[in-house]
């Protein structure tokens, strides 16, 4: 699952260290910010710092009820970048009213950042072996999109504005 040593890129281009820790095999909840899996949701109350949930393609919010109002962040895993379910997961979570941080993790690199940003993701864990500074430029690949999405409420073809 999550490589906590990797840095985190924000949609505004800022780069910061990751603050979230995972619950190790000893099941002891670490101090500070913690990310849990869906199986560890019962531990949420024991987290002292910020609370995050890690979801995979098996954890669609269509079938699972998540305590969205308790979460500071949701990490959506892209096991392979060709599997685009995470983009729709993001759309569904935003529609359910989730306003916290959405973080893309897994097979994430420069060339998918623009799509992720527009789909409502706030932060990105660029995968190991890629230069995060170089990747950050991918956020600016396109200036204006055609479509409405979480990041852009009105499409150009809806409003006529260009």
């Amino acid at each position, binding site marked *: 699952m999550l490589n906590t040593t990797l840095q985190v890129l924000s949609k505004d281009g800022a780069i910061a260290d990751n603050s979230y820790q995972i619950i190790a095999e000893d099941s002891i909840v670490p101090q500070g910010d913690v990310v849990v899996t869906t199986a560890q949701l019962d531990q949420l109350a024991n987290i002292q710092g910020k609370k995050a949930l890690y979801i995979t393609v098996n954890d669609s919010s269509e079938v699972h009820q998540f305590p969205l109002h308790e979460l500071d962040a949701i990490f959506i895993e892209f096991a392979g970048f060709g599997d685009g379910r995470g983009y729709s997961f993001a759309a569904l979570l935003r529609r359910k009213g989730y306003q916290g941080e959405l973080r893309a993790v897994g097979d994430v690199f420069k060339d998918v950042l623009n799509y992720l940003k527009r789909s409502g993701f706030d932060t990105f864990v660029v995968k190991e072996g890629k230069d995060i500074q170089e990747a950050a430029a991918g956020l600016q690949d396109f200036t204006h999109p055609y479509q409405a999405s979480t990041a852009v409420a009105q499409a150009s073809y*809806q409003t006529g504005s260009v």
Partner: protein
Amino acid sequence: MYLYTDFDQQLINQRVAQFRDQTERYLAGKLTEDEYRPLRLQNGLYVQRYAPMLRIAVPYGLMNTKQLRKIAQISTEYDRGYAHVSTRQNIQLNWPALENVPDILAELATVQMHAVQTSGNCIRNTTTDQFAGVVAGEIADPRPTCELIRQWSTFHPEFAFLPRKFKIAVSALEEKDRAATAFHDIGVYIVRNEAGEMGYKIMVGGGLGRTPIIGSVIREFLPREDLIAYLEATLRVYNLHGRRDNKYKARIKILVKALTPQVFAEKVEAEFEHTRDALKIQPEILKKLDEEFTPFDYQDLEDQDFTALFAEYPKFKQWFNVNTNAHKVKGYRIVTISLKRAGVAPGDVTTEEMNLIADLADKYTFGEFRTTHEQNISLVDVPQKDLFELWQTLEQHNMARAHIGFITDIICCPGGDFCSLANAKSIPISEAISRRFDDLDTIYNLGELDLNISGCMNACGHHHVGNIGILGVDKKGAEFYQITLGGHADHDASLGDILGPSFAADVVPDVIEEILNTYLDLRLEGERFIETYRRVGIQPFKERAYA
């Protein structure tokens, strides 16, 4: 046609820069093969058997002469002096060098062209009737709808990595479907409701390939302003639920079949409830889109009387009858130029021919023309008074082959000569059939007949919907050909039935001839091949083909 605003141009220029960067990083080893592959495919770049192939988008088959001249120039500077019109109305270059592709895309961007989403698991080029907007009887011009879908689907952030490719076609004509709409992931039919308002009937889950299937209607009437909201809902259901464990089961048709069309429709409707308000399109935007396709300033011309010319020039008469269609404006005619002849792949067009077609389109029309699903090119706005002169020029350049819609107007994929997926070659089969039926009287006697050839199950040559379909198969390392009969791509669509065991390449023309002789023996007065087939069934054909 829709002309780019600064907004569109910026988007395409940025795409060129993005792809240049991706290609440079790939060549520098910073992007792996597995990372680069989906990225290049979404830019229409395949790596084929001998060389890369670049598929250039022609949105709904509509092009202008400036664009064609640019393709012609690129085909000499970067390729081998020809290009290829595909069954999705796109244009393909067969021999570009990978490192030159960013430069080719930059050249294309100067004439408002690109290769965006011409491959990959994303929403592909939307297609429609090649005579859109100029043929009589349309409920409405389908091009504004196509353009709207183009804008919505281009770089849609949520649907760039779907389970599999996704194709949409739009049909606006009740009597004829030239876009094989029923065989698309989504078929959008322009209709009017009882109040006379324009809207859409939505069909979903059609397709060819390994599992050929006719789509199912999931909505009888969708108000025009809700199209994008409904498409977005449909794509979201597919993106969430389409199979990703097996690429042969990943198309939306498999999902629709597994859930049943009714359950699939319920899921879409539930999602549509959420998207409907946010994605509704304002009436002034629809009006603006319609205005992009305002009819040309046609001259006030009379229909011509060709009796005398027909008597003097029987070849002109044949060409007029076979290669031209009625135009909705009096005094005009639609002309189709055949890109089929023995010796080259169906749909291939040389640099010289492209330049000539551009010159003719400028001289006789408003400088716009269409690429067709049958892999030809149509000049859609020719004044009838210029037809004879146009025919003479085409005749002089061996481009007046009068066989549109007949047996030698073959739809054919590139096959094993170029494509790395193919099981068998398709071009030599097309060639052999063209040579066998090279006499026009014989061709005309056979009547309207679609013969489609695919080199493998992926069905790029649409063999399932050919009246006669030929499919290349691999039999213990040897190339064999399976024949299907009775396929039809029009509104009364049907899939072909398999005749029986496959044949070796060298006997295919004999088998086709026997099938056609069977038809000639059995047909009733005025009956087309498909009609005879539907009346008598496959048995008589089978008996003689395997006799």
